[in-house]
């Protein structure tokens, strides 16, 4: 059962304020992820304080890097059920967990951060791993 919107609204806002586009419907996901060329970071948001509480700041730090995905989008696990299921349908063999992050290039997952790779780690450590993936798979330089 979804949590009250008043509880999750700040968690949604934390992502959109850093520039992530929130996808709340299947159509949103298909439009943003389904046919997207280039690189897309999909952040699966969660109310879980243990892990998501560090994951969201980690994404924010990583988005300050000099090389970024072409777009960053987010879906909210446990809240926007259809949108999350649709997003996960693009993740291939990678199993559902939340929070988690998928970096796709031309529709294929090239890097995945599972919940177990977030738990107990600092935002800085998670962000460092993420920026390494950006350096490896992304090519969009950020102008100063």
């Amino acid at each position, binding site marked *: 059962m979804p949590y009250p919107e008043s509880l999750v609204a700040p968690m949604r806002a934390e992502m959109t304020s850093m520039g992530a586009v929130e996808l709340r419907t299947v159509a949103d996901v298909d439009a943003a992820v389904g046919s997207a060329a280039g690189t897309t970071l999909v952040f699966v948001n969660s109310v879980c*304080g243990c892990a998501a509480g560090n994951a969201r700041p980690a994404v924010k730090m990583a988005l300050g890097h000099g090389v970024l995905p072409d777009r960053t989008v987010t879906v909210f696990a446990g809240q926007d059920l259809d949108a999350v299921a649709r997003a996960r349908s693009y993740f291939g063999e990678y199993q*559902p967990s939340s929070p988690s992050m998928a970096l796709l290039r031309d529709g294929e997952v090239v890097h*995945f951060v599972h919940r177990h790779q977030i738990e107990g780690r600092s935002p800085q450590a998670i962000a460092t791993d993420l920026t390494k993936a950006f350096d490896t798979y992304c090519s969009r330089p950020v102008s100063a």
Partner: protein
Amino acid sequence: MSGHVFHPGHHDLHGITVVLETNTGLWVGRFDSVTPKGVLLHDAGCYEDGVTEGTREEYLRKTLKFGVRATVKNKLIPEQDVREIRQLAEVTA
């Protein structure tokens, strides 16, 4: 940062994805608590010796790469069956 920071009074492993070894296999799932009936995991998958294809190490290697292939929402494992519990993130397969 352990789970009890966000859930005061809970076990240190609360919310952490763990590998729980028994004499007959492995369970991998999100640790909830130790109850009078055993260790409670959520969204858990299992490897059964002699039943699941491949070795325990291969199962863990695949789980590390692709995540936990959960087969049950909740799983209680009697404490007497538990040989070891460790964080999945600490596994080097």
